[in-house]
Structure formats: structure tokens, C-alpha cells
């Protein structure tokens, strides 16, 4: 075979810089999509809880779309499809400032919001109705009961699933490479193409992913244990 492993080319100089830039882009995608997704998920859960068939149906449709269509395709729909809706001037501007990342954030955030709202919903549903009754019997208002009794339990119950979604989101940022966002996977391939160091390039990037993933997995385990809800 005659292939000599040489990590030095990849671990320093411009290739390493590219990898670091990729990492930075990945983290930007990850964090912003996560925050936006979470906020939207809370909003969706509240909307769905209101007993109004049309809005409930809309939220359900939103969730089902994002659960049944591959994330990559969701990215395509936004990047290719939505751009057509915008006027040319806007598109030119967006392309100049590297708008792919914006589309990627939107797609990832919406996708995560769908999954997270389902997790919240099942967290809420698994709370026994007697809890609300007991909270009202004490004299709490409906909002007070939600704030002090129901929601504190709901988020604790939804926590393991939410943390699972966090890991999935982190790995999902790699799909942005499919629409040209220069995140970590994209840079891995670029560096490999340019430097011909296949194993080193992919090896380093894989190691970076694993490190961060393990960190997320560890944090998830610690948090789920700390906030585990045991019902009598």
C-alpha cells in the first residue's frame, strides 16, 4: 500500500486553520439552532395545549413534516426552494454574505423545535392529572399550578429526551455540508482533497466530533441523574 501516516501536515498551518474554522462554524450552527429550536419548541407546546383544533392541527402537521422528511431534504427545501420565493436582489445580497449558514440554522432550528415540542408534550402528558387537582385544591390558580407544580415536573420528565436531541442536533450540523456550509465535515473533505491526507484529515475531524459528542453524552448523563423525577 505504501501509505505513510503524516499528521503534521493536517495538524498545523493552513489546513489546521481550515479545520478550526470548520469547528467554529459547526459550533455556531449548533448553539444558535439549539437556542432558537428550544424557544420555538416551547411556543409550539403552548400553542398545542390550547384547545383549538385548527392550531393544534397546524402544529401536528409541522411536527410530522419535520419528523418524516430527512433533515438533508429539509435543508434543500430551504436553500434551493425558499430562495426562489425571495426577490433576486435579496438573493444576491444573501449569497454575498454567505447565506447558506442562515438557511442551515433555520432548517435545523425548525427541525429540532418539532422534536423537542414532542418531548415536552409527552413530558406533560405523563404527569398524573391528580397533580393539577392537588395544586388547585391548595388554592393555586391555573397559572400558579402550571408554574409551580406542573411545568417543573414536565421539564424534568422531558430532560433525557431533550438531551438526546441535543446530541442529534450536534451531529446533524454535519448535514449543512450538503448545502455548502463550511462546517467541520465540509472542511474535512476539503482538506482531504487538497492535501491527499485521507486518514489524517478524517481522523482528526472524527476525533474532534467524538470529543465533543462524548462531552455532551457525559453532561447528559450527569444532568438526567441530577434532575430525575421519581414519582411516589
Amino acid at each position: 500500500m505504501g501509505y505513510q501516516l503524516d499528521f503534521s501536515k493536517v495538524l498545523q498551518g493552513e489546513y489546521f486553520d481550515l479545520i478550526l474554522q470548520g469547528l467554529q462554524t459547526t459550533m455556531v450552527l449548533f448553539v444558535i439552532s439549539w437556542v432558537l429550536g428550544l424557544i420555538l419548541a416551547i411556543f409550539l407546546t403552548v400553542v398545542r395545549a390550547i384547545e383549538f383544533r385548527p392550531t393544534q392541527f397546524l402544529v401536528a402537521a409541522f411536527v410530522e413534516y419535520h419528523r418524516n422528511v430527512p433533515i438533508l431534504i429539509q435543508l434543500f427545501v430551504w436553500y434551493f426552494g425558499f430562495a426562489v420565493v425571495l426577490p433576486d436582489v435579496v438573493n444576491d445580497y444573501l449569497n454575498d454574505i454567505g447565506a447558506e449558514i442562515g438557511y442551515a440554522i433555520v432548517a435545523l432550528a425548525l427541525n429540532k423545535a418539532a422534536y423537542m415540542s414532542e418531548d415536552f408534550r409527552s413530558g406533560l402528558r405523563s404527569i398524573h392529572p391528580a397533580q393539577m387537582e392537588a395544586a388547585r385544591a391548595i388554592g393555586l390558580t391555573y397559572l400558579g399550578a402550571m408554574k409551580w407544580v406542573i411545568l417543573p415536573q414536565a421539564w424534568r420528565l422531558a430532560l433525557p429526551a431533550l438531551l438526546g436531541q441535543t446530541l442529534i442536533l450536534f451531529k446533524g450540523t454535519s448535514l449543512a455540508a450538503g448545502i455548502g456550509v463550511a462546517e467541520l465535515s465540509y472542511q474535512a473533505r476539503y482538506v482531504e482533497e487538497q492535501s491527499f491526507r485521507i486518514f489524517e484529515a478524517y481522523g482528526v475531524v472524527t476525533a474532534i466530533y467524538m470529543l465533543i459528542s462524548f462531552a455532551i453524552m457525559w453532561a447528559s448523563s450527569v444532568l438526567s441523574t441530577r434532575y430525575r423525577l421519581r414519582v411516589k
Partner: protein
Amino acid sequence: MLDILQEYGVLLLIGEYPHGKLGGLAMTLIISFVSLIVTFPCAILIALARTGKNKPLKRLASGFVHCVRAIPLLMLIFWAYFALPVVIGIPIDATYTLIIAIVIYQTAYLGEIIASGIEGLPKGQMEAAEALGLGYIPTTFRILLPQALFNVIPGIVNQLTTIIKESSLGSIIAVPELSYAMLQVNSNEVTKPLQIFGILAATYFVLCFALSQATGVLERRISNRRTGRVVVEAVA
């Protein structure tokens, strides 16, 4: 939209066959089913290692699962597509590398599901088999696995849905499946991306939604008929 379907319908369904390679939706389905079938025995091995008594084996399987779960599927695909041919010295068709990557990835997840299924069986099953003097292999294969696998049928169908969605990543390495076919149509018909990708999304939606409804039905029917835990999703 209809005109796109009319013009490219055949391409989208079966690719360039018979003038070229099979592709499109047919390819997506073939890749998905083949991946699932190849994953199946591997996942069972992982599950047995995870729930067995052999400590080193258990840790090995555990390590495998944790490592695979820490890597994005796309990276695995890159490894299989770019690195593997170099390692074994012969070129590999993109389609096979996609399948290999999906198999490795899903072995970890499906393995976890089956392991959950095994652990969800009442303890009495194992004890009864041991009391009868059955050795490890008969116990496992004739008593535990059949029940565990039956209980995780919804989980298996669910993973098939996931695999179908994951096959779309093949479009990044030019595997001629449905998404890649659509990308080609889009480069032809530059002005209609919304319709094109709308059709693409709708196709996956119909496929996966139908499967997830089937999963739900299966879950209910199996819950009624069996003891032990019915598993639908990979436990975190």
C-alpha cells in the same frame, strides 16, 4: 408539479435503468432494505454482547456503540467512500460504501434496541430456561431472542424509517438514489426548485409517515399479546 412528474417520473422512480444503473426511489428502497437486512445479524451480536455475562465482550460492544453514536453518519460515509478503498486497495462503488456506512451506524442503534428488548423480558424466562438445563445457545436462540425480537418489531420498523431518511445522504457522494436524482432534475430545471424539492419532501413524507403509522399499529397489537417491554425507540 405534474409536468415535472410526467417528464422525469421514470428517472425518479428507477433511475436510468435499463440504459444505466438502477436509481431513484427504487434504489432508495433497495439500499434501505439491504442495509436493514445486513445490519440485523450484526445488531443481534451487539445486543447479545451487551446483555451477556462476558465482561470483556460487554465492554467491547459498549465501546463500539458509544463511539459510533459519537460520530455523525456523514463522517462514517466519508470514511467508507474515501478511506476504505485505499485501505483495501480496490475501488468500491459509492452505493456499497453508503450501505457499509449505514450498516455500521445502525448496528449500534439497532443493537441497542434489541438489547433493550432482551432486557425487557421478564427475568423468569432466563431462569426457567436455566432450570431446564438448557445451555447458552439454545436458551438464547430458542427462547430469549424470539420473544425479544417480537417485542422490538415496532422498533425495527422505526429504524427502517430512519434508514430510509439516512439514505438521502447518499446524494452527497453521488449515489443514484432518490435525492440525487432530484438534484439532477433541479440542475436541469433551474427555475422550479420549490416544486422539485416539494415533490422530494412529499415522497419521503408519504413513505415514512406510512411506516410510522404502521409502527404505531404494530406497537399496540404487540403490547396486547406479549409480556415484557415493547421497544419502539433507541433508549438514550
